[in-house]
């Protein structure tokens, strides 16, 4: 490990530090014994069950809904349609109007007279049991007057295209532009391209994915007079509370939102779900507790999706391989509506396309496009994986064009370690790192030279199984986010985080965090931070979260922000506790504050060994409050809110060795090595776990997963039979390592790790597959790299996508697909332009 000076470990000398220890997780005890509180476990007296009737068609006018039979069904209490709820349902909020003139059609929780994607709610059954509700769904008879479905973005933006929302007069929600020249952060892009020796242009497809968290969404609402408590499998109880108050008009202080144990999110539970709104409205209307829990097929069909961009990217360079400019034009699929941050995802990515390279000029344009599909929104990385994929792929293409080694080209253009902090052409100030060191370590982990040698042998012997090695040298913006920056991007909220520390009389410590975990291990990591700061035993710390009544302020968990922002808030609260305790200690020890030193949880008077009071003793003292200074309150509890001034920028080098069976097109990862720099590592166990999980999802995008719609707008990957979440048998062993360059932006020195693996791995895997078959004339293969696509790319040219995995093949019909896996004849373009 290349370990440079570590901020966190230099603050307090003394006993063995918790930070850096591979502590086993406190969370596990309940999870491995089945004593967990999932939302669907909740049972309340008189609780009613909701089941949602959903549109089987992608685009239609509702001409009639007959609920009479459903209402007569045994156990059914009532059946509600969009008409019944039209006046009170408001719209699912969109918190990120990326441009002033962005078009937002509004997003009803339940369709009133029009459906715009398969799976949209058209009626809700309220019944005494889950079973009764499910049975009644079949009895609701809805008549649809079909409208032409809009499915292909490239079709949708053409003149005279059918419209998703005809009242908007266009399928384009917004046109977002970032031009480094105009922003003053770079040169004139057009000029750069005009002057360039070499220009490489590609069209990449970043396919639609489904977050596919393992715990299906579930929500329980209990009305108590004019108060409401909602338990929801959400990443964002705090944001949800604010938004629900705004949407439903229920006063915020009458609304309590609890996120109990939450089974994964990956951005998929960073949402204000239509069903959450419906459950609240129905509980209010009926005055009874209600529960809604989705089925998996319901989840795949209606929970928001991710990615789904067509990326046109051009890179300019000179013959020596110095990059001169970068130009990006995106079509980003919004789906049928704008959910919480739907439009913001590609905008967030705008700043990451330059990656770790010193592009002198950069221009980014993005059209947010409406289609008759479920809306897209945050999915692990949210904009950054798409950007990283595009730039890491095009760097390989440029290397091929220049006849350079892809790693050599990267080295030539990436930011050197001594250049940090470095302001990029996108205007971001990268904090710290050493791309060379990470890369060298990754190559060693992989056994690079041996594999290159084997690759040569296989080439020469014309082995049907070819070997390739692919790189991804990435960085990402984490620690979302500086509130002022978010403001400048017109995001609807800030990026601060809040924490409180309560010193209990018995010396135990309660830490309240506004950052709500759903598998990340906050309870463990936060305990480690506090144990170090306050010098109390790890075991004496309890972390409270996920309940707006317990943790009233918070911005929750996403964007690799928890430790960087939320953890820092905890550290700052601890500092305040110590400062308060210092006054009391000075009083009790009859010494001047300046003579006190705090170490190992103990205040002692300099030069008088043995003397002293532990902070836990002080906690008891202020509880008794018999003797404390006049000018202070009798408490040492403290709150803190931290708002970062900059993002943090983890980086890393990922290297993938890939075997490609040229007879069948089957690809198999031979070896995968990565070295990530996520700043200070608070818990190596958790960090490694986060990297592993990210890798699995990033590799899954490259090889397995795609949300495919057919030509009528049916999701043909509507169950886990067809939406291929890889199993243990489908994934390789990962060799992971770290370099540590602390983040200067926060006292912990952490950069964030939640998304790293997911962002970095996808291009490494695709680059590896291409490296294996380039000599066979293959220059692109569309994700996911299905065996058929790989085989077609090798034997028929193009990117293999043209005739493979077309949605409407589910009907044995059309033979082509679009960019986003939707079949239309006109969009059967290859991957190259």
């Amino acid at each position, binding site marked *: 490990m290349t370990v440079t000076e570590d901020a966190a470990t230099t603050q307090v000398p003394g006993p063995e530090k918790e930070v850096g220890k591979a502590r*086993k997780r406190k969370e596990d*005890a309940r999870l*491995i014994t089945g004593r967990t509180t999932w939302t*669907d476990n909740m049972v309340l007296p008189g609780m009613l069950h909701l089941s949602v009737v959903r549109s089987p068609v992608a685009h239609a006018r509702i001409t009639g809904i007959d609920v009479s039979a459903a209402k007569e069904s045994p156990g059914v209490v009532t059946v509600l349609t969009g008409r019944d709820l039209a006046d009170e349902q408001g719209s699912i909020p969109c918190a990120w109007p990326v441009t002033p003139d962005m078009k937002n059609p509004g997003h009803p929780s339940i369709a009133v007279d029009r459906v715009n994607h398969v799976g949209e709610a058209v009626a809700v059954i309220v019944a005494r049991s889950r079973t009764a509700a499910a049975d009644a769904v079949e009895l609701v008879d809805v008549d649809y007057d079909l409208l032409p479905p809009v499915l292909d973005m490239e079709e949708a933006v053409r003149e005279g295209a059918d419209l998703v929302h005809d009242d908007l007069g266009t399928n384009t929600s917004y046109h977002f532009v970032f031009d480094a020249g105009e922003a003053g952060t770079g040169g004139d892009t057009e000029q750069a391209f005009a002057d360039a020796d070499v220009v490489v242009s590609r069209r990449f497809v970043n396919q639609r994915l489904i977050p596919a*968290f*393992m715990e299906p969404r579930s929500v329980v609402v209990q009305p108590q007079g004019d108060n409401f408590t909602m338990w929801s499998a959400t990443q964002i109880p705090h944001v949800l509370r604010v938004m629900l108050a705004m949407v439903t008009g229920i006063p915020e202080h009458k609304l309590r939102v609890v996120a109990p144990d939450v*089974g994964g999110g990956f951005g998929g539970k960073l949402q204000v779900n239509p069903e959450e709104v419906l459950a609240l409205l129905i509980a209010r209307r009926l005055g009874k507790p209600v529960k809604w829990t989705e089925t*998996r097929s319901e989840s795949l069909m209606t929970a928001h999706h991710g990615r789904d961009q067509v990326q046109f990217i051009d890179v300019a360079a000179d013959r020596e391989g110095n990059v001169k400019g970068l130009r990006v034009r995106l079509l980003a699929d919004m789906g049928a509506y704008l959910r919480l941050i739907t439009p913001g995802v590609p905008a967030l990515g705008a700043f990451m396309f330059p990656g770790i390279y010193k592009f002198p000029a950069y221009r980014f344009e993005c059209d947010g496009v409406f289609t008759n599909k479920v809306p897209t929104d945050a999915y692990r990385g949210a904009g950054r994986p798409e950007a990283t994929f595009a730039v890491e792929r095009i760097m390989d293409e440029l290397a091929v064009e220049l006849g350079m080694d892809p790693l050599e080209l990267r080295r030539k253009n990436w930011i050197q370690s001594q250049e940090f902090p470095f302001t990029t052409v996108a205007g971001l100030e990268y904090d710290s790192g050493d791309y060379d060191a990470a890369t060298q370590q990754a190559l060693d982990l992989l056994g690079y030279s041996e594999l290159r040698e084997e690759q040569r042998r296989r080439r020469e012997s014309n082995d049907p199984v070819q070997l390739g090695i692919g790189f991804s040298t990435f960085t990402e913006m984490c620690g979302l986010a500086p509130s002022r920056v978010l403001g400048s991007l017109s995001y609807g909220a800030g990026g601060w985080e809040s924490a409180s520390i309560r010193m209990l009389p018995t010396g135990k410590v309660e830490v309240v965090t506004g950052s709500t975990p759903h598998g990340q291990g906050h309870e463990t990591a936060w305990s480690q931070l506090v144990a170090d700061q306050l010098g109390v035993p790890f075991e004496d710390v309890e972390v409270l979260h996920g309940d707006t009544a317990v943790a009233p302020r918070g911005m929750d968990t996403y964007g690799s922000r928890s430790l960087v922002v939320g953890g820092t808030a905890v550290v700052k609260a601890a500092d305040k506790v110590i400062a308060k305790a210092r006054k009391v200690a000075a009083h009790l020890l009859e010494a001047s504050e300046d003579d006190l030193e705090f170490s190992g949880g103990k205040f002692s008077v300099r030069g008088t060994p043995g003397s002293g009071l532990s902070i836990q003793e002080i906690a008891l003292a202020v509880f008794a409050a018999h003797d404390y200074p006049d000018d202070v309150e009798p408490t040492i509890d403290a709150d803190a809110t931290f708002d970062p001034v900059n993002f943090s920028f983890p980086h890393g080098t990922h290297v993938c060795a890939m075997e490609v069976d040229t007879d069948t097109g089957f690809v198999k990862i031979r070896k995968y090595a990565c070295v990530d720099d996520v700043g200070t590592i608070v818990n190596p166990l958790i960090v*490694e776990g986060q990297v592993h999980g990210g890798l*699995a999802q990033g590799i899954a995008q490259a090889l397995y997963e795609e949300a495919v719609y057919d030509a009528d707008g049916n999701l043909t990957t509507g169950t886990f039979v067809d939406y291929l979440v890889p199993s243990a048998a489908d994934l390789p062993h990962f060799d992971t390592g770290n370099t540590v360059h602390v983040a200067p932006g926060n006292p912990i020195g952490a950069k964030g790790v939640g998304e790293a693996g997911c962002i970095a791995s996808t291009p490494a895997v695709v680059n590896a597959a291409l490296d294996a078959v380039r000599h066979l004339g293959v220059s692109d293969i569309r994700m996911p790299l299905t065996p058929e696509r790989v085989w077609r790319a090798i034997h028929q040219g193009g990117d293999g996508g043209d005739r493979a995995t077309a949605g409407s093949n589910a009907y044995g019909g059309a033979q082509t697909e679009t960019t986003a896996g939707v079949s239309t004849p006109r969009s059967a373009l290859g991957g190259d332009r």
Partner: protein
Amino acid sequence: MTRVSMRVDGVTYTDEVEPRTLLVHHLREALGKVGTVVGCDTSNCGACTVHLDGQAVKSCTVLAVQADGAEVTTIEGVAAPDGSLHPVQKAFHEMHGLQCGYCTPGMIMASIDLLKENPNPSDTEVREGIEGNLCRCTGYQNIVRAVQQAAGELSGSAATPETTGAQA
């Protein structure tokens, strides 16, 4: 309604159930065994895995009536009566074989079943042995480590070296 009687985690329960009741729903909703969860509707994810007469099955693809007279063990019944953890539970904790924990009950039940049949599996055998259980958080590597560690503890040997990864 059909009368069914089954012994679950050592306790015998007799209930009237609709034939269509899935075993997992019977466990969760009638018996309060909410440790076993439902993750999909096509028998792919394995989150609902329990032991039916000692064999791992997906309780979402078994009818409660089919378990009539059977012995069912869920995640809530694998620890010793004194509460001490099963070696596989312990190993999942020690190897960080879980994150959100939703797949964990099924993962543990499948792993116990695997080790009963193959006490000393290779990494590949572990990966194939749990192919019927999906996890979205861990990337499986630490789960493989956990199963190997448990195998070691159960058979008294140490975890095979190749499973302990480069870091941690």
